[in-house]
């Protein structure tokens, strides 16, 4: 076929996207070699100073490590819970439509606004949670000022916000599964658990991988909940790269250094996600569908 037609489909989108993104990307690369900050405006050239500084920046690398467990943990929980409620909402539940709508709602809320609501829930003096605890005669928990509970609080907010995304994708996947393998399993007299392990789960592998990848991408940008609820505190105990980069770039206005951090983050994220994607692809292959 002539090349024109394939191009007609791909190129407008690709070109539009590149046109939107190319300048910001090139600019970001260029600015990392300058010293653009609050008092030095513009693109001078200072070589690799920002990069050298970043290599020494323990706060940055600390936030990176934190992101690893925070994003993997939250996405893993979201996936497990999302799968569980998707299975429940799939069949054999009374008032199915009611529950489906209810469980979708968190995804519809604005994360940055919900983060404020979550802050008002976790706030230690007038928050809902400590209010409930005190009514139950329990001691208040330092939700936002102790490293452990603060991480728990952020995890809870993230799980609440994004489990419905997993739920929706997985439920839609379940609803589109062919019926035959289930009949075969039923004829073989497989137990519910076996049917899940041998039929449902493997058939859901590709869709699961897609959903997990997209969630990982978004989860790696965890920002709203962290910034609104703890500002990365106590100390730096909940600071993620996105929050740290925000602090550097927009609060301290270290455009150049912030961009260096961000570019590094971007490269690492792409590398990590590529590797994860390859691993997933390999894991899912032998069972294949």
């Amino acid at each position: 076929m002539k090349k024109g037609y394939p191009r007609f489909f791909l190129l407008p989108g690709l070109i539009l996207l590149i046109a939107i993104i190319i300048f910001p990307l090139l600019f970001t690369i260029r600015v990392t070699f300058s010293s653009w900050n609050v008092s030095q405006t513009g693109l001078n050239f200072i070589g690799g100073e920002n990069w050298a500084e970043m290599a020494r920046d323990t706060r940055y690398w600390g936030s990176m490590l934190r992101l690893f467990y925070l994003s993997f943990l939250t996405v893993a929980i979201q996936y497990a819970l999302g799968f569980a409620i998707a299975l429940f909402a799939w069949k054999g539940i009374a008032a199915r439509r009611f529950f489906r709508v209810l469980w979708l709602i968190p995804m519809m809320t604005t994360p940055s606004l919900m983060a404020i609501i979550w802050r008002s829930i976790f706030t230690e003096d007038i928050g809902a949670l400590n209010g409930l605890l005190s009514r139950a005669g329990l001691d208040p928990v330092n939700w936002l000022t102790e490293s452990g509970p603060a991480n728990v609080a952020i995890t809870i907010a993230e799980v609440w916000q994004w489990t419905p995304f997993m739920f929706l994708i997985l439920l839609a996947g379940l609803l589109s599964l062919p019926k035959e393998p289930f009949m075969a399993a039923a004829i073989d007299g497989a137990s519910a658990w076996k049917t899940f392990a041998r039929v449902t789960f493997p058939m859901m592998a590709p869709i699961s991988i897609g959903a997990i990848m997209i969630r990982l991408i978004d989860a790696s940008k965890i920002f709203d909940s962290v910034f609104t609820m703890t500002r990365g505190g106590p100390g730096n105990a909940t600071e993620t790269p996105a929050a740290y980069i925000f602090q550097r770039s927009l609060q301290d206005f270290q455009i150049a250094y912030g961009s260096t951090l961000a570019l590094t983050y971007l490269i690492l994220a792409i590398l990590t996600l590529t590797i994860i994607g390859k691993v997933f692809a390999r894991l899912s292959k032998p069972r294949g569908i």
Partner: protein
Amino acid sequence: MFTKKVKTLLAVALPVALAASVVVITPASAGGTLTRTPGQEVSYKPYGPEYANVATTKDGNDACSWYNTSKKDYSGKTLRVLTHAIPNMGKPTALHAKQFEELTGGKVEVEHASFGDLYAKQLRSFQTDTNQYDVVFNGSYQIGDFHSFYAKVPDSVTKGNGSLATLTPLYKELYKWDGETKLFGIDADRHFLKYRTDVYENAAAKAFYKSKTGKELAVPKTWKEYNQHAKVFNGYKPAGQPAGVKFSGTTEITQKGGLMFGAFIDRVAPYAKNPNVKGGFWFDENMVPQVNNPGFVAGLTDFVEATKYMPVGGKNFDLSKEIESFGRGDSLLSYTWDDAWSKSNEPTSPIKNKVKAAPLPGAEKVWNRVTKKWDTPKGGVNYAPYIAWGWSSAVTAASPAKAMAFDYLCFWANEANHKLDLTIGDMGVNPSRTGDFTSDFWVKEMNWGKPAVDSWLSTMQNYEKNTNRVFDLRVPGVSDYMTAMENGVAKALAGQATPQKALDEVAKEWNAITKRVGITKVKSAYQNVIALEDNIR
């Protein structure tokens, strides 16, 4: 599928938008709609039910009075204003914009932003030559970052019968950069101590204190005493405690990014600001940061100790939480900005007439960075109040409508408006003019308690006279310095580092910032701060 929706939407939206623009344009074409006579009464009542209980006052004789402003015609002209969120500054800015539009026929577009965004938005506009705003609001400590983008305030405003002519001398200085007035000062803030009289003036509480410590209870003169009082009364139940509210020792700003640096400076200053050492509080003559000297470390050590006596959640309080917490009666002591004070004086306050003001505590020793020794201060206590920044505004240098912009700001802060704004607590306008410091106004018009008002006014006058004061680090990159400092302090408060180690890291970071911004730039800017610190101007 969506295009259809967009079409329907536009079909609805366009007529609405057109109608709206007609409404705006109509008065403009005829000039101002409001006519005024000299000395006519000024009332905010027409501007909404929230102003129903606001007093009225006579129009002033100043250059920007309502009457004088009504003579101007800015029909067809537009001002772009960037201000803080409602209500603090956001509310008066929007109100005075509406009034200004009615008086002059001009248009004033107001954009609201949170404090962090306020800084980022204007800096972005300036650095990229985007020229988005004519008038911007800011914290006056940021002058080092912004001065070159601001227009000089004309003499007509600062002198004669201009709006800023009656600013106290100290504040006139604070709004200058290199001798030129660059900021339009509409507010002046001080940090001072707030304490509960139902403890400090209560016999039972005094006896309780004596039984615990063997000492007489008096308003704390040093931070050590402050901490001790906080410790003793943490969990105590004062006579006037509002029902259902637990009592704790101290409420402070502890959240990084929540203006915590102000609280830290308050606690550190008397340990580190030595009246006998001239030439720099923040840096020495060679621009070596002092932020990790033993004076700072001593202050931080106190701060860390105090976290034990804070209310639940107190380790994560920003300014708003501090106001809220002290305002509802959570604690014995608090300090920093005026807001918690105003809050506790409101008619509905659960601790009304149970709070008094006093100067910030001092220290029983003060570090001498020259001799590297602790000095014992004259009179046993070294006081070093931090003259915190307040709200200010400015007209941008690139603005094509400077005259109109200054007229707007001048009107904003005219005699009548200033007087009324002072009475509206959440507007964020605090006493800053010579006329603001008479107790009559507060007692009669605001219905505040006289003892409280007297303690407050005398505290502020004390600051005007004190010669051992600490000022903000008014240099380029001040936000960088402050966030770096806050980050270190936050780590120490969270127990992730010892005060010494945390501040050593800050010092390292500060050196990096100085290098990044340029040592000569910072040094020359810092000379202006030293002039304030050492009372040279």
